[in-house]
């Protein structure tokens, strides 16, 4: 599916919900728990988390693909883990900044 910053995505096999922070143009085959993710309005719970994609997502964590052209933020955690085209997404390391306001 085509993604753009601000798009919301929901897992079809767990509670995970994401918001797209950054996305490459064109089709992005993003999955959670081994199953394709969808717009929350259209997502239907269907099936189980695949055993090889069950590391889970954590609230408030950001996930990126290898070249960081895709970045998503977890707004609801779940049991499935994220991948694009079958390649798992990595956790984006937080660079703590001093509080400034």
């Amino acid at each position, binding site marked *: 599916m085509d993604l753009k910053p601000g798009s*919301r995505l929901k897992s079809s096999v767990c509670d995970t919900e994401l918001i797209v922070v950054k996305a490459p143009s064109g089709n992005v085959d993003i999955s959670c728990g081994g199953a394709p993710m969808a717009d929350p309005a259209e997502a239907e719970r269907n099936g189980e988390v695949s055993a090889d994609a069950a590391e889970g997502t954590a609230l408030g964590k950001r996930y990126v693909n290898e070249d960081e052209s895709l970045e998503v933020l977890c707004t609801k955690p779940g049991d499935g883990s994220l991948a694009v085209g079958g390649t798992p997404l990595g956790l984006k390391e937080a660079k703590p900044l001093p509080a*400034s306001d």
Partner: protein
Amino acid sequence: MNLMMLLEMASSGFGDRTAVGTQGQGLTYEQLFQRAGAAAVRFREAGIDRVSMVDTSSEALPIALFGSAWAGVPFVPLNYRLTVPELRHLAAEVAPSVTVCNDDALGAIGDLDGVRAVVRPDFLTQWAEGGTPDSDWNVDPDEIAILLYTSGTTGAPKAAVLRHKHLVSYIIGSVEFMGAAEDEATLVSVPPYHVAGMAAILSSVYAGRRIVQLPNFDAADWVGLVRAEGVTHAMVVPTMLARIVDHLEDVGGGLPSLRALSYGGGKMPAPVIARALEVLPETNFVNAYGLTETSSTVAVLGPDEHREAHRSDDPAVRARLGSAGRPLPTIEVDIRDEEGTPVPTGSSGEIWVRGEQVSGEYLGRNSRVTPDGWFPTNDGGSLDPDGYLFVEGRIDDIIVRGGENISPGEIEDVLLSHQSIADAAAIGVPDEQWGEAVAAVVVPAKGQTLDIAELQEFVKAQMRSSRTPDRIEVRDELPYNETGKLLRRILRDELAESR
């Protein structure tokens, strides 16, 4: 994207933590979420275009801010210190609106067409109570979240447009979700209509840091609240810090709970920060530089950089104490000349910034952002070889004397290094021979008298003679607005009159 997403995450991640108010007695994140939802229902029923606020900080502020985001209408905090005609003008521009207000503002704007004025107690009891709808806010990142009228130190106020995408990008790019420990609390003393007041709410909610509000700044009250509430973090503008330091020097005692103090919103005189480091030895200092049009901070000088600069023997490193630090990882900074061409490292020019949080847009006016995303800030500055940003002030304030561009900040820095001077401003005044002449207005330090000729020699010894003030006037204080911006326009007018 929507600001509500930040509050929803906080509510589901740590809903029982205190969001606003005294520990254990204030509103929790879950309660804030519910009240924002209830307010959103009422805002929608009212059929208005904006939610406005003319009041000091209270728990009504985050409720109204998030409630308007949920309802899908911009939030517009207005300056409650404006005169009645000014306030009526802006309130009419913002209508049709629901305006949460104090009693004075009710009297000032309550009769305007399209303004539904609601006093704070009624808002809290009648608007922010009730059922919470499903999480049905609009997620279009281009929707307007906040309109902030700029302080208008140079002319009529105009409304900066901050969209959900700008503010959400700023928060998720610079704040770690739930990054605050449960005992952390931030003291917010800047007013709601200042970008730092808005950003403080958003970043504290996302970090899970309790907000303590000080409605009207007063140094003794501020110090009292830090001690009573165990405040760990705070942001102040330079005039506030100067008064806090004065107060602490008078009454004695430290602020052991205060781990981090950030300052910004104007040029910080070096003597003030030096005294602050003395009276608050345990506190980490953070200098933040940002603009309303950039959703707050774009560069920070962190605590370690403060310490490193403070104790370095290398003049270039020591000078960084007067810098705004380095750009956030999500922000690019360029220094460019009048044609928009980047200048060599170390040279002065205009500060340009680029990043997702940068709006650069005013309501009803063309955006100043270039097609490739760069925003000219109208601030002058330079970058050193290590990427530290030195801010020189508004380009409009630059003095042009006989074709030579002189930054007021350079002259002010020299004047402030004089031990008998507490505060100083340099401005250009009309001059027949030079076009503009350099004038300075100085405030003597406690118990000091100033010798004008000696001061002129003092500046001349450190700068070119063209930069030596042709005129120096002594005052008891300089005019600042309540958010710490020096009102140079007033000084210019006064000096022009008294010639």
